């Protein structure tokens, strides 16, 4: 069904051999598309591609699969579960019209929510490519998506954090020290989530118990997760471990996911197993997915697509399983995919917008590596922009420094900064707990207490002597 797209500019006729090429060349500049050889050859070609893409009808994306239907279960998922009734009100629009429609006063939060299942990842990706950063922020802010397990994530005016207490040898006291630090800085409502240094079932079970014991002892309305492979988590559940959330890194093509060692059936099996434990108290969203532009190319599984389109296709996978959290780990992959602070910022805003538009509780690991052209100021900017856009959650880590994964992400302090400047609050159930424990004053002023709450002080006292 593919055909050539043409655009005449003065005496020059630009040609794009198919929809995939048009999408790729319309994408704002980034190093990963250059690496893949799909990037526009000039700034003018990119601008022309955007003009051409704006004239493509949304229906085209239902007729022209970017990855063949027969070869790819993600394409089949997108096509088979498309809701044509929800799509009907926008079925006549072009990509350019769709941008206008999204920005219009007609597209209220309620209307956008009714629309979700009619929008495919490719439509979201296409319109994002012709939106400016302020457009991505404005529309994302209108998309309200919330999810719940032991607390409620993503309510308007709220910003949650994943407390990430990683330790290079999974030392239990080292992990506990970072958990304490985070809790006393009001972090950890999205999840307390550990990337294990030793990635096997025995270790995962040990860490699950550690977090479960802490959550129970202090009656913290939050959930835990060990970010291990989905098949490991299934084994943990079979072994009787206290599994709250099921984690998996996902990509936007079947080949990417198969390189990650799972398929859609694996995710369904894990979701069923975890739901059978009935550990949620206010909701039953229990999948935690991570994504990031560049993963398909890195797995050599991108089918000639640009990295942002692949990324948004991963959201179709996420959407299928009603996740509690979806986290785009935007700057982790390195400068060969997102070169500098500018590219990371753009990608973070795109991912957040596309995820929200499709109905995902979208958070962002606002981060960079030391070989990228980025620094803390770039992270401050992106964090602030995402806060304004209504991002569901960000990471919280001691002093921005992940000593296990060797990259920098947002700190406990950073979360308090963005809450304070924007007036956003933690998940309501968690906020109540912060007040009750006298960690933070009530009234949403984000004032931390100077004293250590009694129960934590007692635990600290137990090690205080040993530290002398």
């Amino acid at each position, binding site marked *: 069904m593919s055909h050539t797209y043409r655009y005449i500019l003065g005496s020059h006729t630009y040609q794009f051999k198919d929809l995939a090429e048009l999408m790729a060349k319309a994408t704002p500049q980034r190093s990963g598309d250059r690496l893949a050889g799909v990037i526009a050859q000039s700034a003018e070609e990119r601008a022309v591609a955007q003009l051409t893409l704006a004239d493509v009808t949304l229906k085209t994306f239902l007729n022209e699969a970017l990855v063949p239907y027969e070869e790819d279960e993600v394409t089949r998922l997108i096509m088979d579960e498309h809701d044509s009734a929800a799509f009907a009100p926008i079925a006549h629009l072009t990509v350019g019209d769709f941008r206008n429609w999204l920005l219009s006063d007609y597209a209220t939060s309620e209307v956008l929510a009714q629309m979700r299942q009619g929008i495919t990842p490719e439509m979201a990706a296409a319109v994002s490519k012709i939106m400016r950063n302020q457009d991505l922020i404005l529309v994302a802010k209108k998309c309200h998506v919330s999810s719940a397990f032991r607390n409620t994530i993503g309510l308007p005016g709220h910003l949650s954090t994943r407390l990430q207490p990683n330790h290079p040898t999974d030392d239990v006291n080292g992990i506990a020290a970072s958990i304490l630090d985070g809790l006393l800085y009001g972090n950890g409502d999205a999840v307390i989530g550990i990337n294990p240094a030793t990635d096997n079932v025995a270790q995962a079970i040990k860490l699950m118990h550690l977090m479960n014991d802490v959550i129970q002892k202090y009656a913290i309305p939050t959930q835990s997760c060990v970010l291990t492979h989905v098949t490991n988590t299934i084994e943990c559940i079979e072994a009787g471990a206290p599994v709250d959330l099921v984690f998996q890194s996902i990509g936007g093509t079947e080949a990417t996911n198969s390189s990650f060692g799972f398929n859609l059936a694996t995710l369904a099996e894990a979701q069923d197993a975890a739901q059978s434990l009935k550990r949620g108290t206010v909701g039953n969203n229990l999948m935690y997915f991570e994504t990031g532009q560049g993963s398909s190319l890195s797995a050599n599984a991108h089918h000639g697509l640009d990295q942002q389109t692949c990324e948004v296709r991963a959201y179709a996978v996420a959407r299928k399983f009603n996740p509690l959290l979806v986290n785009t780990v935007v700057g982790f992959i390195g400068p060969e995919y997102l070169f500098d602070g500018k590219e990371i910022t753009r990608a973070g805003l795109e991912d957040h917008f596309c995820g929200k538009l499709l109905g995902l509780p979208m958070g962002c690991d606002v981060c960079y590596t030391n070989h990228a052209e980025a620094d803390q100021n770039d992270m401050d900017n992106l964090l602030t922009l995402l806060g304004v856009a209504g991002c569901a959650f960000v990471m919280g880590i001691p002093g921005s*420094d992940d000593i296990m994964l060797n990259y920098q992400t947002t700190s406990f302090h950073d979360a308090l900064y963005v809450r304070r400047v924007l007036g956003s609050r933690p998940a309501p159930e968690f906020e109540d707990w912060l007040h009750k424990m006298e960690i933070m004053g009530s009234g949403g002023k984000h004032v931390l207490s100077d004293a250590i709450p009694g129960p934590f002080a007692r635990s600290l006292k137990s090690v205080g002597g040993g530290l002398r």
Partner: protein
Amino acid sequence: MKKSTSKTSELIGSPKQKSHQENGKVVENPWSTLRSYTDARIGLGRAGISLPTSEMLGFQLAHAQARDAVNLPLDIETLREKLSTFSAGRDSQPARAAQTEPAKCCTPCPPIALHSQAYDRMTYLQRPDLGRKLNDASRNSLHRYMAEQGGEAELKHDLAIVIADGLSSLAVQQNAVPFIQNLVTLLQDDPQPWNLAPFTLVEQGRVAIGDDVGELLNAQVVLVLIGERPGLSSPDSLGLYLTWQPKTGLNDASRNCISNIRPAGLVYEEAARRALFLLREARRLKLSGVNLKDRTQDGVIENRAQNKNFLLSDE
């Protein structure tokens, strides 16, 4: 930038603690004592809800050091000189490595310097594909070596050790030679001998370049020592990748990795012990990668004391 943990335990949890410093209204965190358990930047204190000046500037210094580690070029000459102490070649001048015992001769000639197809750092950072391939001059050097040394017979090696700058030349500069000293000692004591290829030093190299080198040197196993992505608290992490029967085009599924080799991480002796285990197993099983398991850590989890931490104790 680890801060000293000088707070006294009396301060912990004391309601009467005087938490505001004399200058600047910084609130200190008494739990900073817990830094004895972790290098994580916990208990930093706060000015309002923000980082105190000293911590903020300390972070910037650490980031500057990590950035420098990425951009600092590998000092090939110094490394080559140090590694020459391992070679039997006539023209090698054993360097005066006074602090360590003199190495036994184990490689046939001094190290060979090579370069990837990524001609500079900017290209290297944006084109990982070029960092995985040797440039033509380097391929010719290896061909020439094989022809000169082998003559009529086909020259074979049991093991080729490739040293590549990767993302941290600092890691390589500081840790490659002491690690190799440890490993070579173990290899020389191994009942089944290891016939080593000359060391190769690769500039602007990524892990997979070891496949090119190993194949051209006709090596049964290749070990790549490479500077890892520098962390803020660990700009000097050295990584080790082992591949059985290296061949251009292999992927990560056929490699084994030992990470974080540095004095403050996985120490040389232990890293060398694990590397030897993997080398022997690779030779025994004739494979590497996902089916070659590092069993040196088995039992550690089971043997560890109770899963108790201070948050779960009550006085």
